[in-house]
């Protein structure tokens, strides 16, 4: 290429730059001294991850307790609700199926006063 030959002829391939005295003599040594120990990065990443976990751990536990409480209360509430409904339905059926004689026997053997018994039997509150 003609232009390339012109550049080579005029400017050559010489190096116009200089370096401070002795710079190149200990260049390799300085580079080697600047290298981190192998595995530093991996350990640093692991440490960072541990630090993050350590910081969020109390919040994580608190959230877990809260979620547990919500589920527990919800479960118990629904369970007890279902259970008392079934019991009520069962009681109603049983009471309705009882004969007058049976009711009298129950009343006689119950330590409830009349008003409480009335409340119970009539479902009044």
């Amino acid at each position, binding site marked *: *290429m003609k*232009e*390339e030959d*012109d*550049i080579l002829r*005029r*400017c*050559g*391939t*010489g*190096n*116009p*730059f*200089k*370096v*401070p005295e002795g*710079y*190149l003599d200990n*260049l*390799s040594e*300085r*580079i*080697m001294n*600047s*290298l*981190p120990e*192998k595995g530093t*990065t991996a350990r640093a990443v692991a440490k960072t991850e541990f630090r993050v976990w350590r910081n969020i751990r109390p919040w994580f536990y608190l959230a877990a307790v809260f979620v547990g409480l919500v589920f527990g209360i919800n479960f118990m509430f629904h369970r007890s609700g279902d259970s008392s409904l079934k019991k009520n339905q069962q009681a109603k059926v049983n009471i309705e199926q009882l004969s007058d004689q049976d009711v009298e026997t129950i009343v006689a053997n119950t330590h409830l006063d009349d008003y409480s018994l009335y409340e119970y039997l009539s479902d009044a509150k």
Partner: protein
Amino acid sequence: MNNSSFNEKEILVLLKQSGTQRNAFEMIVKEFSEQLYWQVRRMVNDHDDADDLLQNIFVKAWLNVDGFRGESRISTWLYRIAMNECITFINKKKNEQNISLSDPESEAARHLESDSYVDGDVMQVLLQKALMTLPEKQRMVFNLKYFKEMKYEEMSEALNTSVGALKASYHIAVKKIAAFIENHI
């Protein structure tokens, strides 16, 4: 380059063993640090910048040495890291200082003339000023071909660019530099 004491295959074997890895890397540093310094220096002009970049290049290479499987030559691998670092640095500097390294009358170009670590003759300095007018990658291609006489195939691996594109890039760079020199003498 002292090829008699630098056996790439042996070094690759040593590089894979944790007990000998650091020594093998030291051999690489001894072999390539100076030539890489000059390539980086031609890209950024300033000695302190080149020195900082060189340290970063070898730190990056060291931290990624386990991932180097020897598919390319060690020099190609290092040049790839070096050129990426240079482009990142130049772009960062341009953005931070809002300066144009490609303007022949810019502060950077004037700095080239007054820099106590620039000692070339007038034509060599003029060539450097002409190089500063090129886009970074074109400058890189020109430097590697013109000063280092690197083969296009190796350059292709280092710069991740096709041989055809590199040839075209070099051709354009030569035309621009020749025109610049013609206009400034």
